[in-house]
């Protein structure tokens, strides 16, 4: 009995002691780690720190190797620069101070900016460009969406500051593809593994305005201004990119002042935007329309292979209501695949106007008769039941799906909706294993060429698979390529006319809204702007006051 009691006493004491020790050590750890980032998110009155901006992302920055696609774009943009950049005024010089294009449109000669070094001191010159280009080319298979890699004939450094690229065919969007965040950005050759970047990199050294100082996986990353930056240095000397996966918690953190800005379409839903745009001490910004949010229908599907059914669905969707009801007017209704403002897309097309009568009569015409007891149309005993998949991680897609499900019942179409996590959802799209699903155009500056170019490639998105049931699919895909390699503006426009008209008439896409980029932020953050690409976050242009 005595022995037993002693042991139990010891045990209780032991547990208490261990818990105490751990409790103390964890408390101590908390203090040290909070002190090294200035503890801006702490309680009490805050002094405005004008040197530091706390940005937030929904996941870790992951692998920032600029030549592959596994990292967060905002972070890659801070570290790595390209030869040219896209601005609202078009293509502008960046690491190339200017360039020449041969008359046949096949040879591009870049004059490299002098006096630029990577942040590890390695000189940036034409040889560094060549090494990076080679590294990208080594991973040819990964760049399936990128026409410029497929059309690339040769490239080389002519001299220290001249770099030349030769194409097999003229390809007008080349400069745009060189400007977008990946893969044509430059990392110090010192970071290459086995002379290339295909198998990873052992450092993240670029020429950009910021350098990555610390990364605590899944917690936060710290970017400090690059002391040796060749151009004008940004106002904010330190950017802390926190990771907060949950939508609402992010909004709460902004409200509490733990973070300064939330940026991006996927990060802010319409309700939150509305709330913060009215909240005192906060501001909200909205970009111009960027990309088209749409549905894509699989033309090889048993039911959807009939163009009448596809047109009926197009006519049965009330885009105004989606725009107002779901997006609070943040996104404007879209009646065409690509907005008229997109290059080459100012083509006259007859809009599908919301009309349930039209939709019903199209379905009647296609032989789908209403079964009054179930409220679902039938043909040869088969009900009009269509599967729709959506990305369960996206709040808006889920809402739209549920909304559409209700709406489609009005025309006797049963929409069975299934949400899947992002990875399987994307796999399903690429494999073409869907009837209806969501799709989005790539947005400026990728539109129209990357979006249309992607249609020609299996396994980029779902477009290729969905178009396989179209009669003129081969002609469509050939014409897309012809438009790219055409050097004659009028001819090129004619090709685009055909592509856009054909896609519109076949109605395999249901444009829903034009997506706009958005940001909500603490009002101390100034100059919140949007780059042409929705994937870039112009953190370098912001300042705090």
């Amino acid at each position, binding site marked *: 009995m005595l022995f*037993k*009691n002693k*042991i*139990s*006493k010891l*045990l*209780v004491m032991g*547990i*208490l002691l*261990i*818990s*105490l020790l*751990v*409790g103390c050590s*964890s408390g101590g750890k*908390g*203090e040290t*780690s*909070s002190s090294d*980032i200035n*503890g801006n*998110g*702490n*309680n009490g009155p805050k002094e405005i720190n004008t040197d530091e901006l706390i940005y937030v992302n929904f*996941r870790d920055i*992951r*692998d920032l190797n600029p030549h592959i*696609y*596994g990292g967060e774009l905002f972070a890659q943009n801070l570290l790595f620069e390209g030869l040219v950049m896209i601005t609202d005024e078009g293509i502008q010089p960046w690491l190339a101070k200017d360039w020449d294009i041969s008359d046949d449109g096949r040879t591009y000669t870049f004059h490299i900016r002098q006096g630029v070094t990577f942040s590890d001191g390695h000189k940036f010159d034409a040889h560094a460009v060549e090494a990076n280009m080679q590294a990208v080319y080594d991973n040819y*298979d*990964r760049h*399936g969406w990128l026409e410029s890699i497929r059309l690339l004939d040769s490239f080389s450094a002519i001299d220290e500051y001249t770099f030349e690229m030769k194409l097999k065919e003229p390809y007008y969007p080349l400069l745009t593809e060189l400007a977008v965040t990946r893969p044509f950005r430059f990392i110090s050759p010192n970071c290459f593994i086995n002379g290339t970047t295909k198998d*990873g990199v052992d450092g993240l050294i670029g020429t950009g305005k910021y350098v990555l100082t610390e990364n*605590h*996986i*899944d*917690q*936060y990353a710290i970017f400090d201004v690059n002391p040796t930056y060749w151009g004008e240095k940004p106002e904010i000397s330190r950017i802390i990119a*926190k*990771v*907060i*996966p*949950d939508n609402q*918690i992010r909004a*709460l*953190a902004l*409200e*509490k002042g*733990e973070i300064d800005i939330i940026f991006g379409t996927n990060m802010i839903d319409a309700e939150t935007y509305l709330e913060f745009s009215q909240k005192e001490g906060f501001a909200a910004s909205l970009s111009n329309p960027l990309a088209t949010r749409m549905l894509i229908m699989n033309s090889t599907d048993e039911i959807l292979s009939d163009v009448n059914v596809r047109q009926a669905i197009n006519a049965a969707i009330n885009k105004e209501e989606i725009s107002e009801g779901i997006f609070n007017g943040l996104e404007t209704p879209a009646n065409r695949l690509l907005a008229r403002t997109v290059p080459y897309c100012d083509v006259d097309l007859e809009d599908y106007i919301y009309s349930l009568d039209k939709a019903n009569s199209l379905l009647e015409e296609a032989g789908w008769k209403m079964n009054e007891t179930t409220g679902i149309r039938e043909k040869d005993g088969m009900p009009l039941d269509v599967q729709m998949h959506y990305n369960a*991680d996206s709040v808006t897609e889920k809402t739209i799906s549920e909304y559409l499900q209700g709406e489609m019942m009005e025309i006797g179409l049963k929409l069975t909706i299934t949400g899947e*996590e*992002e*990875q*399987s959802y*994307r*796999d399903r799209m*690429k494999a073409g294993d869907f009837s209806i699903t969501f799709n989005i155009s790539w947005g400026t500056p990728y539109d129209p060429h990357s979006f249309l170019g992607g249609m020609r490639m*299996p*396994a980029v998105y779902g477009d290729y698979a969905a178009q396989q049931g179209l009669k003129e699919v081969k002609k469509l895909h050939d014409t897309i390529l012809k438009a790219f390699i055409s050097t004659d503006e009028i001819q090129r426009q004619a090709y685009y006319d055909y592509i856009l008209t054909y896609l519109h008439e076949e109605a395999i896409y249901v444009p829903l809204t034009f997506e706009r980029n958005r940001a909500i932020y603490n009002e101390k953050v100034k100059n919140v702007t949007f780059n042409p690409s929705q994937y870039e976050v112009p953190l370098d242009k912001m300042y705090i006051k």
Partner: protein
Amino acid sequence: MGKYIIKRILIVLPMMLAVSFIAFVLINLIPAEPAEVALRVNDIIPTEEAIEGMREELGLNKPYFQRYFDWLRNVLRLDFGNSYVNKNRTVIGEISRSLPATLELATVSLFIVIFVSIPIGVLCAVFKDSIFDRIVRLLIFIGTAMPNYWIGILLIWLFAVKLEVLPTGGNKEEGAIILPAIALSLTYISTYVRLIRNNMLENMTENYVFYAKVRGLKERKIILKHVLRNSLQSSITALGMSVVQLVSGTVVIENIFSWPGVGRLCISSIFNRDYPVIQAYILMMGILFIFCNLIVDIIHHKLDPRLHEVM
């Protein structure tokens, strides 16, 4: 006694083997081809050759049991291979990176559980059927019936948004651990208050308490010295088991509070189909469970002489 411990330890080995086999077998429940998944998560077009190449790389074309033993051999060297998603990160690296945060959270929660449930449980037993006891019992019922994710959200809403006293999440701010630890511990507090209360009441009806009373000892002394001690013994074994429950139960809480632990790693691996990470997570939890079981059993055995005869 020593015999029992040896026997008990010997059982652990086949158990671990079986657990490892289940963790391995689970991969085969996947409706898709793992090689294809590994390609797709890296945006590589899964052509026939690419799949074949990846099967080769992952060793999927070997016979089933050979694959298991290869895997097991690597696992014994703590080599779980590399993550599918971040190919340059090892699985063991990912887990050892996130485990400390989870352990920290679980320990603080355990601390809270012990320090809250023991006094409340004792008070409830001493003042059985008083208003205090009734209120606590009601709260306990609510505590066990509330989904802990709801508790988490309510806590965030109350303390972080309305009162602005604590951060919403993350683990670098001061006091960030408080809310998740409370959210995690509430369910267990309910369980243990109930357990301790019942143990105490049961012990109070035992003969020795009666004898002590007869001998004229003060009631408070009896409670503190004998009843509490005896009740705690049985509670401790239960507490030991809940260590694993706490570690594995952090999944939801970690996701709500952006706590960078293994639970969040597990969920993101599920969403990204990072099978090697899921596999390692399952195995780790299974083995942790077995060992906690073992320790608890041995302690239990030492504490309770009645068990000696049975064995």
